[in-house]
């Protein structure tokens, strides 16, 4: 696996260090990706994220990263994973800053609203996988992962749903399509199961069939 190099999108927001350390802990090298040129060597891309949707998209546009990301995902068809905000960026549109996303998975990001539940959705919650996927291999269903978010991804097509999590209603906690996966929770913060997921991603060839 010497030729694997995990790119981590650096959009000057949020917590990159934890993602980078989790990749390294899994036995892989990483490179921060902040310009279109940085895409040349990487074999996998992680869009990490804590932060504000429209601020992130504005940065992606400003650094001319949008075309590079779309090429990497849609033309080169390389394995790509979004985490938390990075997962939401895969959508068409978000209410957070009323802004268009990357449009890689159809659906939009909406504010979590509930009379009874505490917002943000913060803490450990069960992830119920809906299909088998190489990135979830070896992780039992119904295990807990760490969530912290105030917006959620309303996926248009149920065939893109990888996992669900109950918080008031079912929210989509994982998505997939071809060489793309994305998670609302933070695998890099979810101890052993999270590290397993990141390791699986690093070994993944981008084929979503098990």
């Amino acid at each position: 696996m010497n030729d694997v190099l995990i790119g981590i999108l650096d959009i000057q927001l949020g917590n990159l260090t934890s993602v980078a350390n989790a990749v390294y802990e899994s036995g892989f090298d990483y490179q921060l990706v902040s310009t279109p040129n940085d895409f040349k060597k990487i074999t996998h891309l992680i869009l990490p994220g804590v932060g504000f949707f429209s601020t992130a998209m504005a940065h992606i546009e400003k650094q001319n990263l949008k075309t590079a990301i779309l090429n990497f995902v849609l033309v080169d068809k390389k394995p790509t994973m979004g985490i938390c905000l990075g997962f939401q960026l895969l959508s068409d549109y978000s209410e957070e800053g009323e802004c268009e996303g990357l449009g890689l998975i159809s659906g939009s990001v909406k504010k979590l609203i509930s009379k009874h539940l505490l917002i943000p959705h913060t803490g450990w919650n069960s992830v119920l996988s809906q299909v088998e996927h190489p990135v979830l291999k070896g992780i039992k269903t119904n295990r807990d992962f760490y969530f912290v978010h105030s917006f959620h991804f309303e996926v248009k097509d149920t065939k893109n749903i990888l996992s669900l999590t109950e918080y008031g209603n079912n929210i989509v906690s994982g998505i997939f399509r071809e060489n793309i996966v994305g998670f609302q929770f933070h695998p890099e913060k979810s101890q052993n199961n999270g590290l397993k997921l990141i390791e699986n991603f690093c070994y993944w060839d981008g084929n979503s069939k098990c």
Partner: protein
Amino acid sequence: MLKKRVVPILLLKNGRLVKGVKFNHYRDVGDPIQSAAVYNSQTADELIILDINATQESYFDLLKILAELTKSCFMPLALGGGIRTFDQAAQLIHSGADKIVLNTICYQKPELVSELAKRFGSQAIVCNIDVRKHIASNNYILYSHSGKTHEKVSLAAHLKKMLDAGVGEFMVQSIDRDGTMLGFDQFLVDEVMSQVKTPLLIAGGSGNYQHLHQIFTQTNVSGVVCGSLFNFSDSSPIRARAYLLNYGLPFKLV
């Protein structure tokens, strides 16, 4: 379903871990990196690390410790103590903090709290409120600067202001109970929860697992923050969760 949280708190003073009683009489309780590694292997739900020196110099110690921690702790980390500027907070987040814990600055510069919430999202901003109970009036009095400075604002007004500023979580700490191991202040939880619909952590007073059970069954608090319980007894987050799971309370499966 969302789980309850048992959160160890680590207080840093001159690069060492300490624990006090009622925000005073601090005793050395070990090395921060080693303790954090132990809590990580005990699969604690989250860690809170506060620098109680809260100076410019000690802020760099906090950063250094964070850099070490993130290499071995793959769990949520909340850091704070002495954060006074946007850049200090941003640096902590870039270096691996998932949340930053703000206290004194919430009184002095609420606009900075909004700025941080806007940049990093509400979920990354924890507002820590330290209180003492005023016996005669039965009111909570708020304190900044690690319990040293009395703030004039009421608890209700402060909560409201911080919600408007975009805080995503509150951590309230009873100075009266701190280090006493006599149990949490349930009225404090009730008072805060009657006013906010954001996650709440209660700190100050945990002395045994019954205290945890009591606060989780009597209130809807999101998590408990424990210092002395784990520092001065053979208790651990694993055993705490096992005890509470036996009562049917929801905790994470690993």
